[in-house]
């Protein structure tokens, strides 16, 4: 299959690659085609971060830096961007970048195999925070490095390095020069042809290409489809990438809702949700690791429809709607109605998911999203529960509950809602709702948790919601702080 040329900027140079198959990963291109072996493969599924590289894109006249996993990113998706790998940071005279020098000085590398990935995540932090004059706190370092695994150090020296790199002599990317080069690349862009890797720039193009090529694999950030390639060995002659569609890269704010385009990364989508509902910050930061959030999209998470995808229980609780588009027009539906079975949904072969519409918070809204997983960060839920509730005059006026990990699809806990709606907001009501929630689903037992545990904890999370609604503090490890002074 003929594939178009991939062109990107690396170390100030234009790199131009031809005949790259549409399903070839960026890591394969780096290591095997370009012989740049500094970037490592640790797992091939975006969970360890050894393959982290940084992409640069022009956004509103600024250069936006994103650390991503190259092992599950399709190489064609970086066409028109700037790329940095661990080999690109040091100065020509060998002077290390602060991200690198801090790692040396803090003894942040032992076996060194995860190190290139950490260095690139640190480089992303350097550009996004240090260069903007923002201090890197311990919490920020932990959040932004949670997608990088190290098996040797115990992380303390790496977290130290993250906090200390600002103290080293600065070394900055010449953003203006890179932007200039990206502009030049954009100007030379040709319209996508109907073969190989198709990355349309407009919604119209996308809809037309989808209708014309229902056999093409639709991808966004590829953080799940990438695994179909690396782990399931699937091959795609045609790929249709939604992430360059200008209309779908936007978050639009309206009075009553925000509309999140299907190409908006999880990082940006969660930022938009957190802007309206700050209590979601931790939940957002616990969604995978930063490199996955920087590549994956909220639309992809929703369209992929995994029963343990973390965004859907939240979106269901928020009353989100989705908008599907095709040459036949568009249709809108509540998210929970989209799913018809395990990884099955209502998307027609000529349709694409275009928007996710999320209502703005109302004044008396109480909202919590809970996630239970083996590991605090960068893990998939055994159970996820999101509860949105409004109480007026002591009576539950509105309630919507989304649950994950309990059925073949993300679901709405409709029976539990019935047990709550119109009832006095009291312990007794909550206990009845807890019983309803525990019996509403028949979750499976698997490597993440047993069925019995999932049911039990679902109910207990509703108890937690009740206790939090009563103003009780220090009952959730997510925000638990040791306050007492000890020696």
């Amino acid at each position, binding site marked *: 299959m003929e594939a178009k040329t991939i062109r990107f900027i690396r170390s100030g140079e234009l790199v131009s690659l031809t005949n790259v198959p549409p399903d070839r990963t960026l890591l394969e291109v780096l290591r095997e085609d370009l012989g740049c072996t500094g970037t490592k493969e640790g797992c091939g599924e975006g969970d360890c971060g050894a393959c982290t590289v940084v992409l640069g894109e022009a956004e509103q006249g600024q250069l936006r830096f994103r650390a991503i996993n190259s092992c599950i990113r399709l190489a064609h998706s970086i066409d028109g961007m700037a790329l940095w790998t661990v080999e690109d940071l040091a100065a020509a005279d060998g002077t290390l970048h602060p991200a690198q020098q801090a790692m040396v000085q803090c003894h942040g590398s032992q076996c060194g195999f995860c190190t290139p990935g950490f260095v690139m995540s640190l480089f992303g932090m350097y550009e996004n925070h240090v260069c903007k004059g923002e201090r890197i706190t311990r919490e920020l370092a932990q959040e932004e490095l949670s997608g990088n695994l190290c098996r040797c150090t115990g992380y*303390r020296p790496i977290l130290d390095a993250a906090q200390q790199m600002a103290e080293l002599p600065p070394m900055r990317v010449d953003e203006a020069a890179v932007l200039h080069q990206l502009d030049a690349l954009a100007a030379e862009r040709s319209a996508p042809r109907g073969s190989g890797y198709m990355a349309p720039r407009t919604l119209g193009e996308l809809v037309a290409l989808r209708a014309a090529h229902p056999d093409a694999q639709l991808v966004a950030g590829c953080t799940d489809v990438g695994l179909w390639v690396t782990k399931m060995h699937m091959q795609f002659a045609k790929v249709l990438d939604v992430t360059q569609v200008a209309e779908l890269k936007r978050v639009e704010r309206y009075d009553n809702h925000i509309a999140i385009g299907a190409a908006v990364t999880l990082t940006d989508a969660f930022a938009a949700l957190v802007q309206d509902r700050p209590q979601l910050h931790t939940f957002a930061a616990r969604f995978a690791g930063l490199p996955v959030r920087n590549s994956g999209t909220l639309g992809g998470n929703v369209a992929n429809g995994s029963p343990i995808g973390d965004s859907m229980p939240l979106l269901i609780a928020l009353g989100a709607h989705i908008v599907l588009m095709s040459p036949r027009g568009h249709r809108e539906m509540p998210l929970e109605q989209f799913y018809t079975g395990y990884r099955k949904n209502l998307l027609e072969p000529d349709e694409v998911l275009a928007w996710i519409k999320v209502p703005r918070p109302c004044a008396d809204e109480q909202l919590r999203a809970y996630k239970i997983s083996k590991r605090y960060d960068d893990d998939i839920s055994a159970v996820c529960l999101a509860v949105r509730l409004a109480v007026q005059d002591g009576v539950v006026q509105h309630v919507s509950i989304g649950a994950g990990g309990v059925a073949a699809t993300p679901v709405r806990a409709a029976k539990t809602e019935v047990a709550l709606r119109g009832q006095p907001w009291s312990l007794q009501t909550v206990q009845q709702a807890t019983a309803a929630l525990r019996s509403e689903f028949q979750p499976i037992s698997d490597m993440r948790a047993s069925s019995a545990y999932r049911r039990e904890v679902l109910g207990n999370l509703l108890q937690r919601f009740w206790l939090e609604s009563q103003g009780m503090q220090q009952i959730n490890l997510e925000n638990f702080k040791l306050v007492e002074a000890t020696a």
Partner: protein
Amino acid sequence: MNAPEKFIAKSTPKPATGASHFHESARAQVAGAATYIDDIPEVKGTLHAAPILSNVAHGRLMGVDVREAESMPGVRAVILARDIPGDPILATFVHDEPIFAIDKVEFIGQVVGVVVADTVMHARRAARKVKLDIDPLPAILDPREAVRKKSFVLNPVVVRRGEPEQGIASAPHRLQGSLDVGGQEHFYLEGQVGYALPLEQGQWWIYSSTQHPGEIQHWVAHALGLPSSAVTVECRRMGGGFGGKETQSGHIAVWAALAAHKLRRPVKLRLDRDDDFMVTGKRHPFAYDWDVGFDDSGLITGLRLEMAANCGFSADLSGPVADRAVFHADNAYFLSDVEITSYRCKTNTQSHTAFRGFGGPQGMIVTEAILGDIARHLGLDPLDVRRRNLYGTTERNVTHYQMQVEDNILEPLLARLEQTSAYRERRAQIAAWNAKSPVIKRGLALTPVKFGISFTATFFNQAGALVHVYTDGSVQVNHGGTEMGQGLNTKVAQIVADELGLPFERERVRVTAADTSKVPNASATAASSGTDLNGRAAQYAARQVRERLAQFVAEKQNCKPEQVIFDHGQVSSPTAVMSWEQLVDDAYHARVQLWSDGFYKTPKIHYDKHTLTGRPFYYFSYGAACTEVAIDTLTGESRVLKVDILHDVGTSINPAIDIGQIEGGFIQGMGWLTTEQLVWNDKGYLATHAPSTYKIPATGDVPEHFKIELWPEPNREDNVGGSKAVGEPPFMLAISVWEALRDAASAARGGKPVHMLAPATAENVLKAIQA
């Protein structure tokens, strides 16, 4: 030549050892310039292999249909057992493991053969198209079932002292219990990889990411039917080992070599991460039953302990691992009357193998659990019960395997940590806090570690090294150890720099790749012994070069050799001083040998492998950790809040590296006991076979308060630089996490006993609270 007064007037520079020099590869690592096996530029014509895995846990292998695989794009050959020119059984100690499955399969993931193709993905795709005809047989998946059915890879071992039955029967208190502790995947970030290159005249070059190049050499030669001298194995560095590349890297190298042999082409085999999980062995899961008698103070008067190690389908290193579990069941405590029965269970899973601690953690955790239970039974503070049972210094100081504990620092070490961690105050604060906290409960535990240093197989405790001084004065060191991130090469370079009186800066001393053609017959870099053995061997090699140079100076300057001082790159006699470079140049022209070998064998040790008695260890490394946790009684979720560690590394050769080992070992141990859960389903399929489902600690798991202090005393035995081994002992400090979680669970149960499975996942913690 400068006047000697000038030299004496100089301030004495600090020696290289004792300083926190950066890892010798750090600059290369952060720049992506450090080369791992898969980064080595490929020789033209290199092919790639991928394994064909059994999908049945136990069965007769009736046939292998390779037709579809062979017809796939890029495929060059399928290599099976029939293609092995030498012995089809791997050259392991027990000789019980086929290279490729022959007429039966014994676990899901057992390798039946490899597919060789022009690219990695072509090989991997085709490997899944090989059809195995397997007639299933009943599988044993649980060690307790294996004990019942007497399914063993090696015979049970019993170590006994005194009269445990009487000690239990006559005790005022008696408890019986059981415990199950899960295994652990190594999750070295660099997966298993080997690259086999056929050379001229029947010789071979093998690149292997391995802790034991000598074993790779032996295995490859054996499989190819060649003498060891025909095979050279090189490893510059590993991207992590942790015991997982002690034997398991051998399989990969042998498979690559067999493919290369058949095709007469270089063949590389790099396991996909999921295959790595499915194929290679892990830390042994253990199951225990115990019966203990004790007095009112918690002193153990009799203990009977049965330990069943889940060894998987073959022996591999299970014998010595299970032995070490027996040796460390005492941890820091004198067991006057004790019987330990150790079962080495054969099950239909991966063949479990070495992993940091090597049975030590599995030996210690059960005794720590028993002591925690005793304390709760008696209503005593667990720390008091632990201290009550510690080894003495003049009496109560002989282990159950008849070794006298001569270097015991347990009591002062625990006393110090108790004080620096404010254990007693926090115990009271936590109790008061828990009384008022309905959902979150906090827990605290302070546990010790005493870990025996030396390979229990005495003959492994030997090492060799080469020190080469070139005519420009630069120095190359080669030794039999391997670098896996632990900083061995950095420490060895520091030791050699000091021995030659050279400043450490500017890479005057370089350590080169482990290479079987340089130092032969080297033991695995394992058992925490890398620096003790190889550092000493390198020191001896350097010393011989220095002594030859001193002799040369003495003859020229008419003084005694011991009057020649090597310091900071200068060499001085009573009458002259010259630069190291000048001396080396002069010596070369005077035909002085500027290189030497060095050899070291650990003194004092001996051990009877039949009775498990003797002095298997040269010395003990000690440490203790005080850990505070919080648990959520609604969900079982937990967090480690505070950790204070006091650890004994003797006189540290490199404090930053040692602290790195302590922190890294602790966090890895914490993972073993909290989030790292291996789940095999009822068919024997490992369901957690990738980082998406198997969760090692991440940045968010690091406790906010994480303080390490080093015990300020040199090794009481004569060891290199006064140091102590550090690789494994800190791993077991994490038992304090598990005990703290049990303490918190007990608080949630109103002080009642706690039976908690390890790892303490949220589900297991909730179960323990509600049981």
